[in-house]
């Protein structure tokens, strides 16, 4: 083993899911059964599978939004088994993009983007600069002061992408980010999203049921019957 590959292996993976089980309704609805996978840093990995297969649940668990019944999840090598660790994870290490953008409708584009910075207590000037950079990257500079309720679906999703990238997270967890858009807009938004993630060197874990988006990633993991298998 060369020195460089030895150093690389010493770096913990971005996401490591080990023997994770998860069910709902007091065990009556099993979702994940011994799920195992890792995502290395900078990698773009798609979780591909039909609706209800457990993709979203995996993202929620990886982002510390939910707890597994069994098994362990580590993000950037750190366990996320305490509330404090999960809050810190969401503030600094991961960003979420959802199928429905989940923006705050009465806030402007700038203000929606600023929410993660506010949670993390980022300095105002740095926040302002970062928002300008991100909003320019998604082509919405001319609408920065518009409330998001006045934007189109594609524009809203672009704002959601900006918000996810706001605190420069190491990992982006995207749950069907183009699922609510028409095909043409979805292609455009996904291309933009992929480009932004790629350029920033961020790790992407994408849940999708659309093959074409899954195949645009570095690696595809199939989620089926609660298990995760490489394709």
């Amino acid at each position, binding site marked *: 083993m060369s020195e460089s590959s030895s150093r690389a292996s010493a770096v913990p993976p971005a996401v490591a899911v080990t023997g994770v089980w998860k069910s709902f309704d007091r065990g009556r609805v099993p979702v994940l059964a011994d799920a195992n996978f890792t995502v290395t840093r900078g990698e773009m990995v798609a979780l591909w599978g039909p609706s209800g297969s457990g993709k*979203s*649940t995996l993202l*929620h668990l990886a*982002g510390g*939004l*939910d707890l597994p019944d069994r098994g362990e999840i580590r993000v950037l090598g750190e366990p996320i088994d305490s*509330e404090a660790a999960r*809050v810190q994870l*969401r*503030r*600094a290490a991961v960003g*979420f993009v*959802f*199928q*429905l953008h*989940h923006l*705050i409708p*009465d*806030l402007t584009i*700038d*203000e929606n983007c*600023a*929410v*993660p910075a*506010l*949670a*993390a207590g980022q300095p105002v000037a740095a926040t302002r600069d970062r928002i300008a950079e991100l909003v320019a990257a998604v082509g919405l500079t001319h609408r920065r002061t518009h409330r998001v309720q006045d934007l189109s679906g594609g524009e809203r999703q672009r704002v959601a992408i900006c*918000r996810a990238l706001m*605190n420069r997270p190491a990992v982006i967890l995207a749950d069907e980010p183009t699922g609510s858009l028409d095909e043409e807009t979805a292609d455009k938004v996904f291309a933009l999203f992929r480009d932004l993630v790629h350029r920033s060197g961020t790790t992407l874990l994408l849940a999708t049921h659309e093959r074409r988006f899954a195949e645009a990633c570095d690696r595809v993991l199939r989620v089926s019957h609660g298990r995760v298998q490489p394709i």
Partner: protein
Amino acid sequence: MSFLRLVRVNLRRHWVRTLIGVAGIAFGCAAMLTILSIVLGAIGMFERILDTDSQVLVFERNVSDLFFSSVPEAAAGEIRNLPGVAAAHPVLFGIVSAPDHPIVTCFGVERDNPRLAQATWLAGARDRFGTAGEVVVGERAAAFLNVGAGDHLPLGHGGFTVGGVIRTANGFEDGGVFLPLAAAQEFFHREKIASVVAVKLADGARAAAFKAAVARRFPSLIALENREFARGYSQFRILKLTGWAVGVCAFLLGGLGVANTMLMSVFNRIRELAILRVCGFSRAQVARLVVAEALAMAAAGLATGLALGFALLALIEAVPQLNGYVQATVRPTVLAGIAGTALCTALAGALYPAWFATRIEPAEALRYE
């Protein structure tokens, strides 16, 4: 974007609901300010009446109201001769009706009572006080009874001639009628009786010795320094207690309004609060947001309520029928008490909604998108 901006957006989004919450607090503040100011103003007026050139008040022990107190005039004479007494002035209180005015307060006083000496005589002459069949009226009483010097003043089943009009230091006396003590005793059928004896001591520091002397010599009477009287007089205590109780009840209603508003606000944006958690808000930050919204409502309600309360007080003081009986006193302690109660009420109202908001599980809230 600041934390306050989030608070403002949330409150503005459902502005009608927010206004209802603010109105609840505002009415509580206004009620408390108005009631307490009137009560404390009335008490203050009475205290100033007592303070007119005297330090100690002698009256009947265990009496519930000074209007029912009976101090024998002979006792007043003896008190005058007790060691350390510079002056002792018996005063008889009485209430009588006049045409269109069911309540007219009367003060039976001697010619040398300092009230008359210290008053500004707007009409008539002080040395005429005591002339048979004549009374002196306060400036406000003259206005609402519509009488002047030389006019006939019907009181109860009889009447007097107005011998003079005076302006005194406080509205309560200004709204009253001054009778010579003997005439008042006859008019109210309380011959040889006074309600109180206001005592001026040669040395105010010797009040304790004077009080002990009164207790020994007149077991049925009690002597209290003015500040003791104001603190311990049961009518004042009841008035103050009632004022605070009514105010607090008004606030409880306001607090329920805030709790309802905040609860609705939290229930209506469960997903939004979940998103804040997704974006890195801790449970404490979410609770702070809800509490800050309640406090912002309380602050708006407090400002509105105080403005409303001051307007109400001005209105009440301007009502001619209440001239002389209502002199609102807005004390800093009352304002601080109202502000404190408003903020505590809002905090209490926000507790459950804040707790509920912190229990929102992001994954659970987002699962059903």
